[in-house]
């Protein structure tokens, strides 16, 4: 019989909570179970885990036991609606086949060589385990950016025309993707819907207002741009207003509408030095 091993203090942390907080007989909250189940890197990984967890020998797996355990994990994953790779189900089918072969009377000896799925499974488990193990060893090696920091000092002066670094559009987009993923901003409805042309127009309108002048609302709509252009301008103005980057004036009902930057009159100028001067 299996007896659960004593839980140690360096047990896994699930959402910051050590697992040993859960009494052994208590059912694991689905969230925690999900975290465990999602860590498996595929059916071989799950099988290896089941085998190693019980200190079983890969060469002598009790197939019926392992199959049953495997299936209960698969069921649990399906209950939690974890997206199951097809490979998990394929493995389930393979295990079922092995099981049925074992229960059936032995077929004649002429069975083709190498066709025993159980031997094949043992071979694959061993092979996978080698790479799993060595990948952990490689991951543990010091590497640049994590433990190793190469020195790259700027020169005090440089004598050549330094060629300007080039940037490819895909590098830029991937950088953007990464920062957005990190900040989890892709989920925001606000920015998903916003066409980029609006953003461009916002910059343009804002810049036109920088000399402190008031600009007629109507002058921002160019018939030449067509209906779409008008819509883009309009949304840009609304967005600028919402962000309090501009204000909209109308001295009396039906009078011309004007735009200006908030508190216009104090004549701001473009101060580039402001940017480099305000270093942290």
């Amino acid at each position, binding site marked *: 019989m299996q007896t659960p091993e004593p839980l140690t203090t360096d047990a896994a942390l699930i959402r910051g909570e050590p697992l040993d907080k859960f009494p052994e007989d208590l059912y694991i909250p689905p969230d925690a179970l999900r975290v465990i189940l999602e860590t498996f890197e595929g059916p071989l990984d799950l099988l290896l885990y089941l085998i190693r967890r019980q200190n079983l020998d890969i060469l002598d797996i009790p197939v019926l036991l392992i199959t049953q355990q495997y299936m209960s994990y698969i069921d649990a994953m399906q209950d939690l609606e974890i997206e199951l790779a097809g490979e998990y189900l394929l493995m389930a089918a393979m295990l079922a086949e092995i099981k049925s072969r074992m229960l059936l009377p032995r077929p004649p000896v002429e069975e083709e060589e190498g066709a025993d799925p159980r031997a094949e499974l043992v071979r694959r488990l061993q092979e996978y385990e080698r790479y799993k193990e060595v990948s952990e060893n490689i991951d543990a090696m010091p590497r640049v950016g994590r433990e190793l920091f190469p020195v790259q000092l700027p020169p005090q002066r440089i004598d050549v025309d330094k060629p300007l670094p080039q940037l490819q559009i895909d590098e830029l987009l991937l950088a953007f993707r990464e920062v957005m993923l990190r900040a989890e901003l892709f989920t925001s409805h606000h920015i998903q819907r916003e066409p980029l042309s609006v953003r461009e127009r*916002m910059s343009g309108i804002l810049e036109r207002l920088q000399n402190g002048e008031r600009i007629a609302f109507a002058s921002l709509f160019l018939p030449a741009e067509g209906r779409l252009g008008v819509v883009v301008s309009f949304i840009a103005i609304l967005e600028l207003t919402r962000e309090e980057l501009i204000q909209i004036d109308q001295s009396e009902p039906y009078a011309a509408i004007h735009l200006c930057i908030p508190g216009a009159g104090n004549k701001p100028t473009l101060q580039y030095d402001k940017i480099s001067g305000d270093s942290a």
Partner: protein
Amino acid sequence: MSEARSSEIVDESIMHCIEALLMAADGALSIERLESLLANSGEPDRKAIRVALKALEAHYAERAAVLVEVAGGWRFQVREDYAELVGKLWEERPPRLSRALMETLALICYRQPLSRGEIEEVRGVSVSSSIIKTLLEREWIRVVGYREVPGRPALFGTTRQFLDDFNVKSLEQLPTLPEIRDLDRLDEAVRRLRGETDTQDESEENAEQTVESAGSETGEAPESPEPPQSDALH
């Protein structure tokens, strides 16, 4: 003065910690920053840090790298005498743009007009002045206004030059956020932007290399680390 007295005792371990930090840092480090970084490494006070910096400065006096004090603090630089030699390093290969710079530019592109503080908010780290300066010098971004809040932070937007350098006519041609999110759609968008119909053809040409010649159980890493351009996004 007590300063003079303590200046004779250099804490070697603190000096090496400072040396490590300055060798790895992207820019200058102020004494205050060093003090906070070293809080768990001997917790030297500012005086002790200054003493260690002086000792380091003296040690490097005769070396190719030199420790200098600039506006933002202390930094190592390659000595001016080697300007021409070091220049050769870049003649052959333009320097790479940092990830921080690319992310900053991308955020300005997609969320303009926005301020440095807003970029920092999204990135979760501070944006160095030198990045903003580089982008302004490169004329990829411009100041389009100021946010009317205390401090009046500048608001940045992208420029025509940016569009030209990236070979797009307007920002509208860039992929939308949902496209960027989905890697396969992003691939498609990039190919569209490059005006390529099918990159497959290109890689076919590179493919002449046979498996045999590539068979590298030899332990030798292949010569050029760069994957063929066309593979960059596959």
